[in-house]
């Protein structure tokens, strides 16, 4: 809770605090300073103010963290095919575990899971918890939540990592709210403190800001992470990992949701799988100009992608949007044209192996992540590049 020490408030201090607050949550009228509901608890007024606002730590009940052990990964599988994000999270879990003396667990839910389990035994996991039942064949959020509730009550895991797939993004919040614990979405970096607190880093406050988030008063700690953010777990030839078959009760498979039918979607080329991506941003002046970037894309075998404003204008398809509200890419080469580089965009592409950015503004944030920053007008540079490539081909 923030507490205002009114004695320390004079009009000068008040003015300073009002301007300091980035959320306009501090108001000053008739010699009284007040904090409104717009407050986001960023505590800047506490850190940078004049000591007139203090943060009063509220006594939260602490738990005995030693009772909880195991960094758990939810294995997202459909018809026996494991989503690769689950294997990336296993890789991350194995990196985090030794930092706080944790075991690595996997939870897999479904029907006919033998093949998935066999595969999971090659990633050096300590235990694989299996919930299998014919009613669990397809993902049903209520039944899967009950499985997780059972797992949490019996095993008391320290952490559960979910891939930010449509399944993970539906299941993780449900589980978090069921056991009343914290959940952090789309983490771009994870670490673990010696006291087993999970350090979760993600963009925040809708700006070019990263936040480090912890869930220190409750266990388990839950988070989701996108596909292609972490590295795949290493395949180990030798099989390991105890398989724990968990009892599935009739109550657990009762569901308020009936799946009437399932239609497989046709697989489509996705920007997430592309090795080379050319991304376009607000620097593109008109829709017709996209054509000439298409030409460059076909010359170097790239997929075209875009930022959110480009998609919102309807100039490009939402399947081509990169960023927190779009997709995550990890190509070998990424060329960013006319993109300022908002943190939301960057979090969807910062793990690209090579990033080249072209922007007229030498202070553009995209240059902070680019390996090569080209200060110039893409409308002049790209046509010449296209001509160079064409010329080069003739020789």
């Amino acid at each position, binding site marked *: *809770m923030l507490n205002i020490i009114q004695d320390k408030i004079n009009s000068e201090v008040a003015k300073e605090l009002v301007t300091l607050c*980035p959320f306009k949550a501090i108001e000053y009228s008739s010699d009284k300073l007040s*904090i*409104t*509901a*717009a*407050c*986001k608890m*960023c505590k800047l007024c506490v850190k940078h103010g004049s000591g007139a606002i203090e943060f009063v730590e509220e006594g939260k009940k602490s738990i005995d963290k030693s009772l909880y052990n195991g960094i758990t990964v939810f294995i997202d599988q459909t018809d026996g095919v494991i989503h690769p994000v689950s294997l990336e999270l296993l890789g991350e879990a194995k990196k985090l575990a030794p930092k706080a003396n944790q075991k690595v667990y996997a939870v897999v839910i479904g029907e006919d899971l033998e093949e998935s389990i066999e595969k999971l035994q090659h990633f050096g996991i300590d235990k694989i918890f299996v919930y299998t039942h014919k009613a669990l064949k397809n993902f049903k*959020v209520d039944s899967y939540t009950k499985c997780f509730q059972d797992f949490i009550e019996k095993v008391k895991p320290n952490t559960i990592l979910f891939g930010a797939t*449509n399944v993970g*993004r*539906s299941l*993780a*919040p*449900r589980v*978090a*709210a069921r056991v*009343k614990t*914290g*959940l952090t979405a*789309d983490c771009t970096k994870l670490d673990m403190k010696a006291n087993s607190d999970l350090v979760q880093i993600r*963009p925040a*406050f*809708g*700006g*070019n*800001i*990263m*936040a*480090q988030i912890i*869930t220190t008063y409750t266990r388990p700690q839950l988070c989701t992470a996108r596909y292609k953010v972490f590295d795949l777990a290493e395949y180990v030839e030798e099989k390991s990992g105890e398989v724990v078959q968990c009892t599935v009760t009739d109550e657990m498979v009762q569901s*308020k949701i*009936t*799946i*009437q*039918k*399932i*239609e497989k*979607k046709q697989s489509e080329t996705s920007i997430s799988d592309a090795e*080379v991506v050319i991304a376009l941003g607000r620097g593109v002046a008109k829709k017709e100009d996209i054509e000439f970037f298409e030409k460059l894309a076909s*010359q*170097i075998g790239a997929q075209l992608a875009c930022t959110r404003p480009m998609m919102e204008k309807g100039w490009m398809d*939402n399947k081509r949007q990169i960023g*927190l*509200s779009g997709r995550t890419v990890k190509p070998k*080469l990424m060329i960013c044209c006319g993109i300022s580089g908002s*943190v939301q965009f960057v979090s969807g592409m910062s793990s690209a192996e*090579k990033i*080249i950015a072209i922007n007229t503004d030498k202070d553009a944030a995209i240059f*902070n992540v*680019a*390996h*090569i*920053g*080209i200060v*110039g007008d893409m409308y002049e*540079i790209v046509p010449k*590049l296209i001509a*160079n490539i064409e010329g080069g081909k003739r020789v």
Partner: protein
Amino acid sequence: MEIIVCIKQVPGTNSVEVDEKTGVLKRENVASKINPYDLYALETALALKEEFGAKVTALTMGPPQSKTVLEEAIWMGVDDAVILTDRQFAGADVLATAYTLAQGIKKLGNPSLIICGKQTTDGDTAQVGAELAEVLDIPHVNNVISVRELTDKKIVVDADMETQIERQEIHFPCLFSVDKGVNIPRLPSYKRKKEYKAFTITSYTLADFEDRNLEKYGLKGSPTQVERIFAPEKSADSEMWEGSAIELSERLYKQLKQEKFI
């Protein structure tokens, strides 16, 4: 039938930055707007109202100035608008937000259906809808792309599950969130804007709630805490190129060739 649509006010642009030297947040003076994802949720509700008849209420949580998004919802066609606002709600994470919204919804009676947008453009978590459904103990479906059927007891929707489309049948009460682009949201009507000059927006504070336990709300009710905020890291090995367009394009050509992309 009663439908509640949860909406949120978000900053007009992502212009918040951290000053690297001082660590101070800088926020430009930008207008706020309705979260663009919520427009699809509003349109979904209004289309259901037109086809089947329903009372649609827009619900938001935030500082008093976020009432403007409710006005926009009214001009689009919702029947009622409610804001949950209290300083005690400040600093709420997903769980505390879901709990606050659930308490607000309890005040509004027993809606059959709650519709949310996929995510907001400021928090970008896409988690509040599902947590809200859990707090209310009702089923939910995410990523709804179309409503196929609606009776007085249940709704049938198509949900996009990435590799497949699932047709799901859910009994009321329930919650679903809609994907972006599932419809074309109507514009606020000028006629309604004129007609509804005297509309009232209901405002609830913590004192109006059934559960007034402070430990459930705001920062105190939030299991996650922001430990620190910082500017995004700079790439360690970066080089800047400046020069004429001809020089730059040739250098880029050589670089791409050298790395075998050409």
